Structure formats: C-alpha cells, structure tokens
C-alpha cells in the first residue's frame, strides 16, 4: 500500500509533469534543430515566435468564445490552433523574405544570422507585448482534470490521490501525433527526404536537382507549426506570459544541443532529458522516502538534491557538460 502511495506521489509530481514539460520542450527543440539543419543558424527569435503563435491562438480563442463556439470538455484553443498556425507561418515567411533571404544570398557567416535573429527577436517581443500586453493570461477552458485527487482517493482508499490534468493528456497526445506525422514526413515522403539530403550536404543536394527555395519554405512552415503547437500547449498547461516564453528558449536550446544540433530525433529525446533532470533533481523526496521506509522520520530535511530555484541552472549545466565533452550531442543518429 505504501509502495503504491509513493508511486502515485512520484507520478503526480515527477513523472507526469516531466513528460508534459518534456513534450513541450521537445516540440520546440525539433523546430530549432530543423532551422539549424536547413538554414544553418541558431534562431534566437524562436522563443518569441512561440509567444507570437500562442498570442494568435489566444486571440482566436477569445474570438471564438465571443461567438459562443467551444469544444465542450476540450479547451477552445485547440479549435483556434489552425488559425494561429496560419498567422505564424505568414509571419515567419515574411521575415524570411524580408530579412533572412538577403543574407542567405550573400552567404553571410552564421554569426550574422544570429545577430539578425536578435533583431527579429526584439521586433516579435515588441509586437507581442504591444498587442496582448506583458501580463499573465490563462486561456484554458473545458474540464480541468481527467482524474482528480479527491475522486481517486474515494475510489481506491489510498492516502495519495492520483491527479492527471486534462492539459497533460492533451499535451502528450498532441505531441505524439505531431511527432508521428513529422517523422513520417521526414523519413517517408520525397520532400522530407530531400530536406534531409539538403541538411546533410547542400552542394550534393543542389546537384541532384533539389529546389532550395522549396526546402527552406517547408522548413519555415514546419518550424512555425511546431512553435505554435509547443507554445499553445505550454500556455494551456501553465499560463501565457511573453517573458516566460523568452526564457523557455534557453532550455529549448539546451535540449537541441544535448540531442545533437541538426538532429530532430535527438532534439525530441533531448527535450525529455532536460525536463526529467530539471524536475527530478529539484523535487523534494521527503514524503516519498517517508512512504517507502518502514520507520517514520520527522527530520526537517526535504531530501532535495538542489533547490527549486536552480531549475533552469540544471539544464544549463547539463548543456555545458555536453558542449565540453560531446559537442555533437549525446544521441548518435542521422543528421536530419
């Protein structure tokens, strides 16, 4: 019985939250990695692109709600997602045409691209804050819990109640679906294969008649779709705040590099590695140990490896370790 209690506790506070957070990071990391693989630069504007996409989704959610449209137990944001994605794609392509294309044709250095993406970061940052403001916005509606602690306790008689929020399930299902479609696209279709070829060796790809403009167009489209989905899922799960989205760029970069930059499957795993280590290392295991040990202890020690304040620092530390010892990433695999 105690073992079950401990397991539920772990699932509530470590396992399910890390899978959810990991999925959100994974989607973002795949987007960053695709841009890096095809366009060959680290896009610092990606966090703000996520914020922009989420903002569009929120605006459409409000619009739909004002018309009285909703999805019942599901959040209305899911219905607004396609509209948000469309707007984000348009914005990405606009910036590609007006900004990145020029430097691509000039074959500028990666550093120039980084600097330019900083400029876009500032612009998107401003646009989001001007349109929707800098404050916290909760746009989750529909039912909150799939399994709530109280019901679970009543049904089973255990001391700990298993809690699964509906946003967590939505995140996991959406991520699995998106990744399934994406990896099928990259591995099975001709366009996907040509994308991988282009990322692997640009000259050979051009030689075999692959149209670079088409590849770049599709990369931006996929990256924008992923950014919007990841941002919306994060916003549904927690809340929407432009500044948090900018900060999320850092663990996403960490996930990308841990998985090997330019490698989507690695980025996918990298997201989970970062999320699990962030949450598992900062969780206070006091109660968990209390259930498992036969004797009870009333020490004030929380049995926490590192204080929660250092949540972000953990992912950065992992990244630094990876960069020093294995700059190609810890997951061996094909470059996209």
């Amino acid at each position, binding site marked *: 019985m105690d073992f079950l209690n401990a397991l539920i506790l772990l699932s509530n506070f470590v396992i399910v939250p890390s899978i959810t957070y990991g999925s959100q990071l994974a989607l973002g990391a795949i987007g960053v990695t695709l841009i890096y693989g095809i366009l060959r630069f680290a896009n610092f504007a990606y966090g703000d692109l996520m914020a922009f996409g989420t903002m569009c989704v929120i605006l459409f959610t409000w619009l739909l709600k004002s018309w009285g449209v909703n999805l019942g137990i599901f959040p209305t944001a899911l219905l607004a997602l396609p509209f948000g994605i469309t707007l984000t794609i348009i914005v990405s392509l606009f910036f590609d045409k007006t900004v990145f294309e020029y430097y691509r044709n000039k074959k500028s250095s990666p550093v*120039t691209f980084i600097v*330019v993406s*900083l400029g876009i970061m*500032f*612009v998107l940052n*401003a646009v989001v804050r*001007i349109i929707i403001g*800098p404050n916290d916005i909760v746009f989750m509606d529909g039912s909150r819990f799939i399994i709530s602690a109280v019901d679970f306790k009543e049904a089973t008689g255990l001391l700990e109640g298993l809690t699964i929020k509906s946003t967590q399930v939505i995140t996991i299902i959406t991520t699995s679906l998106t990744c399934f479609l994406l990896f099928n696209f990259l591995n099975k279709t001709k366009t996907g294969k040509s994308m991988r070829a282009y990322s692997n060796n640009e000259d050979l790809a051009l030689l075999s008649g692959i149209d670079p403009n088409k590849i770049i167009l599709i990369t931006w489209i996929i990256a924008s779709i992923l950014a919007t989905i990841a941002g919306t899922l994060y916003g549904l799960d927690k809340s929407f705040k432009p500044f948090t989205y900018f900060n999320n760029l850092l663990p996403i970069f960490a996930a990308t590099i841990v998985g090997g930059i330019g490698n989507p499957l690695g980025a996918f795993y990298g997201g989970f590695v970062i999320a699990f280590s962030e949450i598992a290392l900062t969780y206070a295991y006091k109660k968990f140990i209390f259930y498992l040990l036969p004797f009870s202890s009333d020490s004030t020690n929380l049995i926490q490896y590192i204080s929660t*304040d250092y949540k972000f620092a953990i992912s950065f530390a992992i990244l*630094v370790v990876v960069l020093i010892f294995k700059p190609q990433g810890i997951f061996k695999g094909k470059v996209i």
Partner: protein
Amino acid sequence: MNNIDAKTSFTIMGFLLLIVGILQSWGVAFSILNLCLISAIMSMGVNIQWGFAGLINFGVMGFLAIGGLATVLISVPPVVESWSAGGLGILLSLIFLILIIYACLFINKRYSKYKYKYHLIFAIIILTIPVLKLISGPSIKLIESINPAAQGYLGGLGLPIIFSWFVGGLLSAALAFVIGKICLGLRSDYLAISTLLISGIIVSVIKHEEWLSRGVKNVIGLKRPAPYEVDLQNSEWFINLIEIIHFWSPTTKGIIISSSGIFVKICFSVIFLITLLILLYLSERAVNSPWGRMMRAIRDNETAAKAMGKNIVKQQLNIFMIGSAIIGFAGAMLVTYDGLFTPSSYQPLRYTFLIWVMVLLGGSGNNYGAILGGFVVWFIWIESAPIALFLINIFTFFLENENIFKIHLIESVPYFRYLMMGVGLLLVMRYKPEGLLPEKKIKF
C-alpha cells in the same frame, strides 16, 4: 549615407541631450547622460571582445551582475551578528568547495590519460553537492534568520564604493577565465549559446543565495562616491552657489532641492566621464599596439596567425578576460549609480542583447563607434516612449480619445522601444553592417 566622423556625431549627441534638458528637464538629461556613459563603457567591453577579437559573448548580463555583486561585497558594512552566527560554517564550506575544485583539477592533470577521468570528476561533483549543502545549510539558515527585513546576509567589507569597481572588474575577469577555459574552443554559435546560458546560471546563483547577496530581497542604500542631496540642501556654500547661478530671481526651497539633485548627477557624470576617458585612452593604446594588430590578425585569419606562431587560445582567453573585466567594472558603476542592487532585474534582453545592439549599431572594431552606440541606443531606449506617444497621436488623430484601439496603443507605449531596437538593428545590419562609425582600415 557617407561616413560621419566621430566629432560630428558626438556633437549631435550633445545637442540632443541639450534639447532634452530644455524641453523635459535637466535632471532627465543628466540621468540619460550618466547611463549613456555607463552604457558606453559596457559596449566598449563587448567591442573589445567582438570587434577586436571576434569572440561572441552573450553572457554580458552575468558579468554585469558579478560587478553589481562586488559593490555589495565591498561597500556594505559587515553584519557582525551574521558573521558570528554562521561565518564559520560558510568559511568551512568555502574551504570544502576549494578542496573539491582542487581534487577535480588534480585528477584532470594527474590522470590525464585515464579513460574514465571525466566520469570520475563528474561523480565527485555529483556526490559532493549534497555534502556541501549539509555543511553550509545550518549556517545559511542562521545567517538568513538574523534581522531578515534589513540584513539576513553577511554584508561586505565596508570600504569606499569606488574600490568595488575594480573588484568587480577583477571578479569578472576571474569568472571570464573559467568560462573562457570551458567555452573558447567552441564554434561561434555554440559559444554564443553557452555564454548566454552560463550567464543565466550566474544570475540565478546571485538571485537565490540570500546569505551572500540578499537575493530577491535587494540591497538598498548603497554608498555613493558623490555627496547626498540632503547634505547639499543644508550646506551654506551650496545655497550660495545656487544663488549666484540663479541670479535673475530669488532662490526658493524648491529650486535648491531640484538643483541639489542635478548637482549630484553632475558629480556622477564627471566621475563617469573621467573613467570613460581613461578606459578609452588605454583601449586605444592597446588597439594600436603590436598586440592589438595581432588580435585583429587572429580575428581575420586564425590559420595565418597560428602559422606565425601565435598562441591563439591564450590570446583569446586574455582578451576575453579584459573585455569581461571592463563589463564587470561597468556593472559595478551601474549599481553604484542606482544606489541599489536588484538581482531580479538582470534580464538578458536589457543587459545582454541591448548592449550588443549598441556595439553593432555604433560600429564594431572601433572604440569611438562603441561609445557612440552606447549613447545613441540608450538615448533612443529612454526617449522612444515620448517619441512613440507623439507618433501614435499623429497617426491616430482621426480617432477620438475614448477609442479603445487608441487607448490600448497608448498603454503599450513602453514596448515600442523593443520595436525600435529591433527595426534599428535590422536596418543597420542590412544597409550599414559596419555600423555608424566603422573600423578604421589601416593602410600601409
């Protein structure tokens, strides 16, 4: 656009500040000037790394925060109760920390051929963190419980605050040494990402180690190298001075109060200006020396420099440390000017990327360019709100004042500065990638 020379551009800048002084107020003009001077020093630091050595450092925020921490550690008087309560524990854990670091370095050197060397070091670090927490935990709790509303930390050394600028520089240089050892071998984009993330770690340490820096509770009322307003208002000579300057009408209490504020700001301006000029002189000398030429050679062609027998890793580490020291120095100056240390205000957008915009806009590879960039960007950063308000009012003149759209726009005026920065950076990168004052090409 032709290249404007340094003199004209700085004259224009001076005129702009003059206009602010006349239209808004002299207090605003001088506080803009002071922050322009500090920003100029920051961007000089980044320029040394990026413009002269081509090292991309996105960790500016971390070095500024370390400089700010130095002001607390040097100028604040020590909290005796805290030292007697938990000082011993903190010292013990510090010794323990140093021992761990030495152990890691020792293993790294002694067993340099051993296959599982890094696994061993990694295991040591992972295992010793809980021990470190166990040693320091009780004393940290004790320290933080002593007068938590005003103190709850160890305090500093109680020295004059000017010292802390140099200490800030030294601490930054030491930190840059560690970061440089780890990251400088990386590719440019990896260097950018990893320095950004490391600066995040530094700020989170400063934010959360309350026994050291009071963390998010902030340290207020730091010392100043300039007189205090209240003292000025009560001193005979100052009132006489104001009466002489303000000869056309009788001096009232209000005038004395407002002019004491301006006087303090002028004092700061003089100190900052002298610092800037000294740094500029040193930097110009360094850049035009054989060493400076070597650095540019390394930047432009690493392989050729290597072939000439230059130790590139060492030189890059040197310049990374020098640049970071200047950034840390500026960080200490900034906190001194603000008079308070607020760790939670360190955000990458304001303290890393804005400084980068200054360097890129002003002209990387040219000290005058970096300084001009600091001035221009800070001026726009502050004055963009009034400008945006003005533009909004012009473009929405056909709407009534109660229009929701107009009200929303006016409420979001503070965020137009990000837009201006972004658009400005994009335009400069596109049409004048070498910046306002480009690097002087030396002809032989």
